[in-house]
């Protein structure tokens, strides 16, 4: 169907290539906000960010500022961050505790933690007016739908659509993988969120997450530098380098090894990149962890859990999850050429401390503001964004291994790590969202 003016979504997306306008056009971006981000399930946060009643965390869903808050009855509510009186935001910090009520800093209207109005000063001023406490206009508005899956809080601004589990579909395995690796079956957020701004379109980031060709090219400098220091460390100390070095030296793995991975496309644009890091070493820390796992799950189930081989799960359009390393990046588009990522990591509840340290090392080396890995990714993304402004060509090519995908039950498998199937899969979902008749 046609967009506002000037473009037709169906003309922009072909099975093996997409028009550059998808990345640079502001009008398309606005449509993405309304048709994708204001409609799909969007990750809000993890419930462990708000453990106590009155705890809140703020973020955005598309263009809508929202508050995730813990109610005294332990339930979680996701509310628009807007005072019903004259519109002031009720929470101006990224996180905090509001006590037993939200109190607006402007004229002191107060709201209970489910958003229902608690007190409005100068009540008699409303006598004989159209305003009434019974009206929905007196309360903070809740998002249309909110669901929690294993502690992960998602919201949708649209009343219609599949429920969260159906929408995640088979991709739910990635969230299960992260939680199952905890002896207690749950993860807990570490309350440090790194936020990075990318000067590029949000889709470029998501496409890169399952691009198995780029690491050995983009990250060669860091991978080789880490390899060299690994050797020096062994020579100088006689000790094998810690696993954390492998996280970055693995980026220098030869190209054909990357090709042996698999990329899997799930319905609704979700995708999975099969693991490659060999995260099941046999050092004493790992063995201790595995023993704890067996105590909780029994030997058979433990093997099943540890055999899951996911490196990256992409929950389209809002999340990149690295389940075996308990990392997560939430995507918050700002403009066609600007994207904010909120980067979190988690503790496996019940796992020994050294296992947390692995997640922490990866968080530092790959996801911190001083990352030697994303330094080159972000630069590539920006160069893509700038190059795509040019009229030197209209199309972005996703032809690699097109036509070789095997589709079964809505799941696309390739057996070719280099296949651009994940990008094609994402754009299939993109087209479905963008051509749907109703936006929220």
């Amino acid at each position, binding site marked *: 169907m046609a967009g506002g003016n000037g473009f037709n979504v169906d003309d922009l997306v072909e099975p093996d290539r997409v028009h550059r306008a998808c990345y640079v056009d502001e009008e398309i971006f606005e449509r993405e906000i309304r048709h994708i981000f204001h409609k799909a399930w969007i990750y809000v946060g993890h419930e462990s960010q708000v453990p106590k009643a009155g705890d809140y965390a703020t973020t955005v869903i598309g263009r809508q500022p929202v508050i995730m808050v813990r109610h005294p009855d332990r339930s979680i509510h996701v509310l628009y961050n807007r005072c019903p009186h004259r519109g002031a935001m009720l929470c101006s*910090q*990224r*996180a*905090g*505790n509001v006590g037993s009520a939200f109190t607006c800093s402007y004229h002191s209207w107060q709201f209970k933690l489910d958003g229902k109005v608690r007190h409005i000063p100068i009540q008699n001023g409303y006598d004989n007016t159209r305003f009434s406490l019974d009206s929905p206009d007196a309360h903070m508005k809740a998002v249309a739908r909110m669901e929690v899956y294993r502690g992960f809080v998602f919201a949708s601004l649209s009343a219609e659509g599949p429920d969260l589990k159906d929408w995640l579909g088979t991709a739910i395995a990635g969230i299960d993988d992260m939680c199952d690796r905890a002896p207690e079956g749950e993860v807990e957020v*570490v309350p*440090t969120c*790194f*936020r*990075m*701004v990318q*000067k590029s379109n949000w889709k470029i980031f998501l496409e890169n997450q399952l691009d198995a060709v780029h690491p050995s090219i*983009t990250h*060669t*400098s*860091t991978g*080789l*530098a*880490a390899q*060299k*220091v690994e050797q*020096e*460390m062994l020579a100088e100390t006689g000790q094998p*380098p810690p696993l954390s*070095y492998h996280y*970055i030296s693995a980026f220098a793995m030869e190209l054909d090894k990357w090709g042996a991975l698999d990329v899997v496309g799930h319905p609704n644009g979700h995708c999975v990149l099969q693991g490659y890091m060999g995260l099941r070493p046999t050092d004493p820390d790992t063995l201790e962890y595995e023993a704890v796992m067996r105590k909780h799950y029994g030997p058979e189930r433990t093997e099943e859990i540890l055999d899951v081989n996911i490196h990256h799960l992409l929950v389209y359009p809002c999340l990149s999850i690295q389940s075996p390393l308990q990392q997560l990046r939430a995507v918050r588009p700002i403009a066609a050429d600007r994207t*904010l990522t909120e980067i979190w*990591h988690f503790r496996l509840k019940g796992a020994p*401390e050294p296992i947390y*340290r692995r997640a*922490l090392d990866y*968080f*530092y080396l790959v996801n*911190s*503001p*001083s*990352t*030697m890995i*994303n*330094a*080159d990714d*972000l*630069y*590539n993304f920006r160069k893509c964004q700038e190059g795509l402004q040019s009229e030197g060509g209209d199309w972005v090519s996703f032809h690699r291994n097109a036509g070789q995908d095997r589709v079964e039950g809505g799941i696309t498998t390739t057996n070719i790590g280099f296949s651009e199937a994940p990008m094609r899969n994402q754009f299939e979902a993109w087209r479905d969202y963008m051509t749907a008749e109703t936006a929220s």
Partner: protein
Amino acid sequence: MSSAQDVLPGAVSLPVANASLETQHAVEQFLYRQAEILDDRLWDDWLALFTPEGHYWMPAAPEQMVGEGQPNIFYEDHYLMRVRIGRINHPNAWSQYPPNRTGHVVSNVVVEAEDPSSGDLVVRSKFYVAEYRNDEQRFFAGKYRHHLTSGPDGYRIQLQRVDIVNVEGPFDYVLQYWI
């Protein structure tokens, strides 16, 4: 989450040692030299500033007390610093084309503690850094806190803590190396 009071630790009066003019002068020269080494990208000299166990640390929150086992913006020993240097010097470090250029100013140098027997120091100071790369300029300001060992060749850094004022971000692009 922190209240307004505890994110403004200025209310606490920090200790000041009664250091001699000579010590004050020597440590200021050391800090200026470190800034110069960074601006000139003299990586071997940079590594030589640190003791063998020395760490460069930029916490992820002002109230953080230790680097070990915590999320940090930087927490690097010699080996990790060598990886970073190896990357920057590699011809395929794509984001080093063009390289970034920095200008550091270090000031407000206060000797906080001095061990009378060893001469080891704890020194705090303020910095201001302009970074230029690819037609863009960024600025970072904050404070350093150096734990210095004193030896025959002068001072060495046992621990350098760096608190930038915009620690919560968001970060517009990454920090490719130390501030």
